């Protein structure tokens, strides 16, 4: 920040200290810990499994990481705007179960059902946003409520156990890709979706006035409101973006892992962890897209590594907990120093 005080002298011109290059560099510095952690994990995985850097193998890793990374991209908008979205795990479960029941293995129904899922996701996101901003319910409670409602309603509808199955042209999005790409082998559709979502998210958050409004809203809602930002609308759109990202993640996961009432379980906390690992601050106002995606990839790399090391399944939770606390602790410490 510039430290100009008092009245500027005549002919004073503000020096733009916020050139895009500097901004990106500063963002990288503030959020560097996550890139270091990610690099260490990826190198360690490569030591354990030298094939890991082969493009096809690495693409398989990216395919597995894509749903969480896409989810993190959506959650990031909500977190930076100063809110939480706990409903994304329930949205994923709902997407998988509803898709299986409605398509019932019929490939002709795939496209209408996918359209319906996106429409439903937008409705859930709008409900989250409007209840939070217009009724003044804290988003933690709003999205906890929609989580209960979605999980309850879906399981009620199917009577507790999943019915129907997903047709192959629905499952292909999570399982297949474009074959015979030179050097890469198969380019998974999930990775393509990840690149599109990542690029769109980066542009929307860091390159548009909507993105600036998201930061302003989270940094100081009152100041943002007084400077003409429609705070409720900015937050509502963020919830819709998060819900859409959950629908995409759900479609990919449905193809990848199959139909189960616990398909999305725990994803809300993983997405929030990922975003926070990427340097976003709960409470809003700070965060960035690439580090958030790196945070999500770090979590998946951690799971892959612990798998390779053959650590007992349950201890993976403990390691995840320790890493989250240490990484966020370091970020908090650096954040205070730079102030």
């Amino acid at each position, binding site marked *: 920040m510039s430290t100009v005080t008092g009245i500027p002298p005549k002919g004073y011109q503000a020096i733009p200290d916020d050139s895009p290059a500097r901004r990106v560099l500063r963002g990288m510095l503030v959020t560097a810990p996550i890139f270091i952690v990610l690099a260490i994990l990826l190198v360690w995985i490569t030591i354990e499994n030298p094939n890991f850097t082969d493009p096809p193998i690495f693409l398989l890793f990216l395919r597995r990481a894509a749903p969480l990374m896409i989810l993190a991209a959506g959650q990031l908008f909500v977190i930076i705007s100063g809110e939480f979205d706990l409903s994304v795990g329930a949205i994923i479960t709902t997407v998988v179960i509803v898709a299986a029941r409605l398509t019932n293995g019929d490939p002709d129904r795939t496209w209408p059902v996918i359209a319906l899922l996106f429409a439903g996701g937008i409705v859930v996101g709008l409900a989250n946003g409007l*209840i939070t901003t217009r009724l*003044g319910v804290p988003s933690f409670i709003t999205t906890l*409520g929609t989580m*209960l409602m979605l999980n309850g309603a879906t399981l009620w509808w199917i009577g507790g156990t999943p019915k129907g199955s997903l047709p192959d042209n629905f499952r292909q999005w999570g399982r297949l890709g474009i074959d015979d790409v030179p050097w890469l082998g198969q380019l998974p559709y999930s990775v393509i979706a990840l690149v599109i979502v990542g690029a769109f998210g980066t542009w929307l958050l860091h390159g548009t006035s909507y993105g600036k409004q998201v930061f302003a809203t989270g940094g100081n809602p009152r100041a943002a409101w007084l400077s003409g930002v429609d705070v409720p609308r900015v937050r509502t759109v963020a919830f819709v973006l998060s819900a859409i990202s959950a629908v995409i993640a759900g479609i990919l996961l449905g193809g990848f892992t199959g139909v189960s009432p616990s398909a999305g379980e725990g994803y809300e*906390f993983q997405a929030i962890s990922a975003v926070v690992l990427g340097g976003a601050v709960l409470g809003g106002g700070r965060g960035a897209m690439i580090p958030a995606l790196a945070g999500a990839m770090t979590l998946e790399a951690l799971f892959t590594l612990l798998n390779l090391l053959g650590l007992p399944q349950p201890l993976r939770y*403990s390691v*995840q907990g320790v890493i*989250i606390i240490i990484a966020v602790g370091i970020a*908090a410490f650096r954040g205070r120093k730079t102030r």
Partner: protein
Amino acid sequence: MSAIASPRNAVVAARAAFGTSSTGQIYGVLVLVLVVTWSLILATGGNINLTNTLVRSVALGIVAVGQTFVILGGSLDLSVAYQVSVTAVVASVLMDGDPGNIWWSVLAVIALGAAIGAINGIIITAIHINAFIATLGTSLILRGALNATFDNYAGEVPDEFQPLGYSRFLGIPYSVLLLLAIVATGWWILRYTRFGHHLYAVGASEETARLSGVRSGRVLIGAHTICSITATLTGLFIISRLSAGAPWVGPDGNYDLESIAAVVLGGTALSGGRGGVLGTFAGVLILALLDNAFNQLQINTFLKDVVRGVIIIAAVAIYALRQRRDVR
């Protein structure tokens, strides 16, 4: 003293007794839910059992009192579910079926709970990690440690410990008395001790409290310690109704999110500084009455979650609207 006779002072006194005026509202809602659910049960030929409903609310009620403390301080605790499990398993293993082990095992798990709470508080206040992330982290750590060590029932709870779960005093179950005692203690601490007043101050504005000389860090660590001790007591109550502790009792009861839901349903602001344990008690009772009604009316359990979601959101929306009207 004669002034108390005037109706206006009676209202003030009533408000003082219930903590805040929003507590009055929540008890109004409680009565409404009670009347509606009981009429429905009676109309369909079911029978009403208040004691049973109360016993069903003990496990959630105890830990929700502790959750009220941390939320009042502007914090929250997502690790209580696994703390309940840790207590259940560790206490069961320590007791090992021998009644002579009961008293020191109970003290040991309470000490363990207090230590976990203090660690949560220290991570949040000293390292400045957001409570959501900090307690999510400790929750994952506890979950991993617990599931790596135990995968089934462990230890044995001596029969002599079961009266807490099943016996009655003057027709009232011990467990209900325990819950009432904890609610009363929580109310007294918040209302009459310096710590309680400091907790409200820290929750309303940490910075203002600190600048006014309140050691906000210590206050929050204290609140987290209390919260974890209540999680321990919930764990002890649960194993008094089982023959052994199991690692899944906490997450199966969903005590983390349910306790937070009960607290905000009881009118405590999630942002801290406003509310109290009497409201939480009503919130827990409302959830228990709904449970009871759904069971009696044999309505699909999944539909119950939908109704819960609606009620939690609606209640908090009403508080928020009233809050805004009060400010105007």
